[in-house]
């Protein structure tokens, strides 16, 4: 075929070569088309390049904008700082500092103290040498003695040891006293240097401002426009967020618009403040080769952005840098959209599983607490909760309802509509019909223990008994947990008692009050060690707590009969259906599992699995979404909110068989509670965070976390304040001050804040009052304020005592339960353990009672450990040298009258400890309400160091205490020596356990 064609062509071509006209397309110039196409191509390439370099890299222009902004800011700062340095104020401060330095150097006291230290050092070297030699001999002799088999030689050596011991102890004592003296001199020097340091501090505030601005400008010069990326292979993080959010970890950009704002101070840590001061001086000394811009010291200091990135907490598509919307992940099909607002707190739970009181995440903490307290755990499983929380029995065992309730009718009403009787109850509304309520009540009634006697006819009690009960209820501390309509106090920790008289039988109440654990071993109500008489009085008072005065008992038999076995059988099915036994232990239902869905991964549950029923449009509309896929996080949040608001609304308008119907009851949560619970739920994701990146609590933190869970469970904070109020304010010298203590009064915009911790930065000591703003610095600006934690009942008791005894409010404060600030350094752990197990009366003036909680050994130890951990105390054991015979003997050896003189000081007319303090069986004069704690208990109770610190300045340790400060250092006729020696002697005497009656008697003689 091919050949053939070739032949034809060859034959034709010679004659055609000249005659055939050229084809038209060979003549037409295509140049212009090519040009157009080339231009188009070039254009599109230019566009592609532009798009690639600019449009798809918006962070470039953001960074340029930021650098310009920052340049302006630092220049302004610099100008201001220079102006301030040129001001007379600074010159004066500088002069004042120089003066202070020269005064300090010339101060004869300083010179004397330095000489004294030198002298003590010399002595100390000698004594130490002697002590080491003596101890060496002593220990060698003991060693030989222990190795000797010959009893005679052993005895001889024993005598030798006994002979040597006092010498060793004497030297030890000398050494200690020399060290003590040295410390006194050093303290004196520090005190004398105070003026110098204060002046320096004031002066350096000016210089710091200049340095900050200079460093900022310097650092800015080195800045280039670049992608700023955090990469963490372990966490699977590629975050480029800081390419736009350039100022996240830079200080001073709080007021700038996004994306140029500093990461907010989520919370303020005083420790961080110290650190930042330390680092600031470090940066100042070397002539900074790579100056760092000033950085924030707060949440980010613990979660460094260069390691953790942003998206781990905030969500979003960290790697996307093409647009804000993409980066925030607020586009279709992205599984992790940005967690805006409070939702960011939900991320904490991903790594912090044990901590229930996370700093800076109050909404999350609240959500977690609600999930446990309201019994969500009864139906749903949450793998993130600690066993402590997950296994909590949140509702009472129902075996005793026949013994406890006045009428079965109450039970039916309650099951039908619990919140009708008690609006604050945690028991949810199940939406039952009357008939269903009767059926459930029948099962419960028939499966409860029968009372030994019939309900006694409603007794009336004498008014005196009722009044006595009322006084007890007000005084022993019931309102730390309970509330009543006609009394102050709003605690919702335990059931509201406003209508308790309509519910409970008198005989049950008496028995319950005397020993609640006997009735509800898993319940939280503690024993207040009431006598039968006291319990009867309280019970009589409680029976009067009714809404309507008519007695309903007589109507009981007319209404519902709960003895029908058929109804009970129906009831059983209903109880199983609604999962009542998830919260209440019910006879015959002990092995039932949880009826609800597991929620351990609810935060990443695929949205298509969420059933919105007929409400999809309505629910999504609330979060401005058209479709669930537009923002899966918001869709999930909206679904959960609706579910919590109206649990069965997703069934609305649909036909369902009874067993398929939604069963979740309505808890009547308010919007705040819903936000908190949803925040917690959204943190329950399936993300796998490697163990080494999860929060690993050290021993101390674990002790705190565990202690806090028990403290919350037992509501210790109903009575005791455990954390101080804090207030942080900024002064125009650029410094921030962090105060810990309590607001005493707020008047005309000024807060009068009593310090509980020394504040050297302001030259203030604990117990002093700091007005904020200070009248001398009217521009002081409050940055943050956190309320104290605990002591809910205190204002009620103060109010009561102000009225009852006409006291000043500050005076009445002593009648409230003590604040437990620094408890871990105050008391000995074994004592606290025993006290928690079986409290003794310590403060005779208190009417409010420390209850017996019947804590398990483990829980009691955990609480003791909590205090030790919080305050940096020891746990569980410590050596108390002052109690040991050898110590006592050495003291006696050195001075046979040591203890006697210490006692003379205590009993003298000048100090008169036992004018107020109880000492075993010996009681002070006057009313018990004016007495002070028993000092014979102190040997086992108090830490020796605390006693000295307390004697030195009681109000500094516990502002407002009744214990006065004494002028130690005087009393030379009683106990010659320094103030320190006098206080040490009293401590030694107390700790030696010699405060026994005979000795006191002999001293008096």
């Amino acid at each position, binding site marked *: 075929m091919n050949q053939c064609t070739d032949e034809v062509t060859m034959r034709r071509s010679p004659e055609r070569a000249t005659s055939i006209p050229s084809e038209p397309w060979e003549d037409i110039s295509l140049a212009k088309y090519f040009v157009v196409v080339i231009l188009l191509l070039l254009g599109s390439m230019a566009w592609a390049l532009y798009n690639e370099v600019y449009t798809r890299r918006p962070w470039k222009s953001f960074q340029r904008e930021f650098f310009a902004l920052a340049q302006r800011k630092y220049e302004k700062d610099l100008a201001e700082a220079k102006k301030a340095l040129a001001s007379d104020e600074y010159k004066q401060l500088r002069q004042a500092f120089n003066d202070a330095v020269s005064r300090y150097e010339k101060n004869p006291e300083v010179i004397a103290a330095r000489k004294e230290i030198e002298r003590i050092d010399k002595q100390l070297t000698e004594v130490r040498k002697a002590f080491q030699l003596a101890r060496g001999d002593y220990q060698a002799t003991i060693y030989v003695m222990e190795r000797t088999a010959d009893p005679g030689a052993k005895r001889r050596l024993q005598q030798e040891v006994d002979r040597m011991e006092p010498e060793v102890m004497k030297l030890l004592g000398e050494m200690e006293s020399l060290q003590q003296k040295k410390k006194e001199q050093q303290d004196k020097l520090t005190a004398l240097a105070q003026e110098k340091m204060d002046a320096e501090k004031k002066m350096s505030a000016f210089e710091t401002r200049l340095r900050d601005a200079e460093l900022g400008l310097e650092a800015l010069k080195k800045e280039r426009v670049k992608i700023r990326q955090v990469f963490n292979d372990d966490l699977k993080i590629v975050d480029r967020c800081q390419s736009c959010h350039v100022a996240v970890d830079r200080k001073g950009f709080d007021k700038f618009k996004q994306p140029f704002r500093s990461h907010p101070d989520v919370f303020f840590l005083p420790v961080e403040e110290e650190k930042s001061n330390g680092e600031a001086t470090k940066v100042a000394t070397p002539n900074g080769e790579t100056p760092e811009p000033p950085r924030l010291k707060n949440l980010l200091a613990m979660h460094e952005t260069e390691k953790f990135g942003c998206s781990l907490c905030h969500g979003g598509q960290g790697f996307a840098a093409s647009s804000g919307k993409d980066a925030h992940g607020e586009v279709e099909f992205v599984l992790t959209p940005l967690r805006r607002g409070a939702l960011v707190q939900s991320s904490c739970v991903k790594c912090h599983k044990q901590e229930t009181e996370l700093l800076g995440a109050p909404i999350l903490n609240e959500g977690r607490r609600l999930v446990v307290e309201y019994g969500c755990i009864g139906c749903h499983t949450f793998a993130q909760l600690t066993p402590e929380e997950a296994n909590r029995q949140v509702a009472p065992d129902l075996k005793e309802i026949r013994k406890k309730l006045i009428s079965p009718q109450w039970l039916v009403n309650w099951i039908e509509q619990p919140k009708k009787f008690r609006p604050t109850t945690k028991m949810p509304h199940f939406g039952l019909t009357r008939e269903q309520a009767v059926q459930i009540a029948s099962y419960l009634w028939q499966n409860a223990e029968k009372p030994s006697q019939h309900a006694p006819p409603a007794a009336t009690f004498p008014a005196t008994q009722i009044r006595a009960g009322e006084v007890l209820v007000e005084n022993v501390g019931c309102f730390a947990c309970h509330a009543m309509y006609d009394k102050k106090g709003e605690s919702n920790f335990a059931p509201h008692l406003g209508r308790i008289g309509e519910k409970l039988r008198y005989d049950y109440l008496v028995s319950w009050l005397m020993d609640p654990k006997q009735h509800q071993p898993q319940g939280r109500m503690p024993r207040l060690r009431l006598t039968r008489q006291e319990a009867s009085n309280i019970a009589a008072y409680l029976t009067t707590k009714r809404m309507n005065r008519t007695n309903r008992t007589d109507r009981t038999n007319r209404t519902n009969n709960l003895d029908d076995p058929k109804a009970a059988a129906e009831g059983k099915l209903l109880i199983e259906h609604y999962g009542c036994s998830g919260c209440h232990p019910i006879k015959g239902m002990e092995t039932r599992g949880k009826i609800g869905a597991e929620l351990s991964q609810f935060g990443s549950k695929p949205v298509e699995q969420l059933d919105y029923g007929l409400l999809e449009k309505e629910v999504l509309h609330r979060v401005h979404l058209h479709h669930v896929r537009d923002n899966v996080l918001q869709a999930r949040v909206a679904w959960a909110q609706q579910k919590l608001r109206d649990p069965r609304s997703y069934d609305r308008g649909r036909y369902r068989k009874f067993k398929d119907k939604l069963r979740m009851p309505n808890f009547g949560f308010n919007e705040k509670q819903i936000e908190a619970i949803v925040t917690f739920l959204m943190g329950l994701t399936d993300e796998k965070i490697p163990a080494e990146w999860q929060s690993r609590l050290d021993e101390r933190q674990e002790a705190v976390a565990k202690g806090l869970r028990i403290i919350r469970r037992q509501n210790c904070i109903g009575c005791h304040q455990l954390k101080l109020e804090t207030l942080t304010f900024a002064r125009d010298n650029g410094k921030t001050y962090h105060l810990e203590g309590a607001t*005493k*009064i707020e008047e005309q915009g000024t807060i*009068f804040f*009593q310090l509980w911790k020394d504040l050297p930065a302001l030259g203030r000591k604990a*117990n*002093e*009052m700091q*007005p904020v703003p200070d009248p001398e610095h009217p521009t002081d600006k409050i940055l943050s304020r956190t309320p104290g934690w605990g002591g809910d009942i205190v204002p009620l008791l103060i109010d009561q005592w102000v009225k009852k005894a*006409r006291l*000043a*409010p*500050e*005076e009445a404060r002593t009648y409230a339960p003590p604040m437990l600030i620094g408890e871990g350094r105050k008391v000995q752990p074994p004592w606290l353990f025993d006290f928690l197990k079986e409290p003794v009366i310590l403060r005779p003036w208190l009417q409010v009672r420390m209850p017996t909680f019947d804590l398990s050994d483990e829980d009691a130890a955990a609480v003791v450990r909590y205090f030790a951990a919080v305050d940096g105390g020891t746990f569980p054991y410590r050596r108390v040298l002052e109690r040991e015979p050898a110590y006592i003997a050495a003291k006696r050896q050195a001075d046979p009258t040591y203890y006697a003189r210490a006692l003379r000081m205590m009993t*003298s*007319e*000048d*100090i*008169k400890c036992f*004018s*107020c303090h109880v000492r075993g069986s010996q009681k*002070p*004069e*006057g*009313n018990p309400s*004016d007495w002070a704690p028993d000092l014979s208990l102190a040997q086992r109770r108090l830490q020796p160091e605390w006693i000295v610190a307390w004697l030195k300045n*009681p*109000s500094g340790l516990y*502002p*407002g*205490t*009744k*214990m*006065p*400060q*004494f*002028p130690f250092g*005087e*009393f030379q006729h009683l106990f010659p020596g320094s103030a320190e020696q006098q206080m040490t002697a009293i401590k030694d005497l107390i700790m030696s356990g010699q405060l026994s009656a005979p000795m006191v008697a002999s001293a008096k003689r």
Partner: protein
Amino acid sequence: MRRLVMPFVGCVLVVAWCGVAFAGDITGTVKYKGTPPAPKKLKPNKDTHVCGTAERPSEELIVGPGGAIKNAVLYIEKAPGTVTPKKAELDQKKCVFLPHVQVVPAGSTLTLKNGDPVLHNIHFYCLKNTPINQGIPKGGKPINVPLQRAEEIKIGCDAHKWMSAYVIVRDNPYYAVTGADGKFTIKGVPAGKYKLTIWHETLGKKSVDVTVPASGAVTQDFELSK
């Protein structure tokens, strides 16, 4: 030189006249409305060798003949002028604070003394000033306490609960304490409208508006009851 003396004296006189002439006094009487309750009795139950055993009338409400109330404090809430700090004293004799009620200008120093041969402890219940709680042994050194901010401070002794005293700190110089006759005079108040406050330890606190004339006195009487 001599030519300058006369105008100078003249100026001084004019200034002095201005100062004196545009100021008036506030006077009045404080009385109990109705029948006063029988005075409470305090009985020492401790350290009776010093404090004595005899019952003593409580000083919390002293009503004299005609219902005159002693120890009511009157002061002007806000007024121009600065206070001159002074030295004030609080002594203790036979387990009684002396004086029971006193007013001191802000910035003053209060010297605490113990005139009894027994330990006392002086406990300030303040909300604005730094609270002091100091034991003073018999013959102990007096203690100086600075009082910086205006407030009414109750003072007690934790060793002897029946003892009490009040120190009222004021930040302007216009105040007075009623004597046994219930009378008071606040002198030299610059003319103008003010809020006059009366404070009594058991009868509480209340305020009225007063207008002080350019010269002479304005009378403002009070009737208090529980």
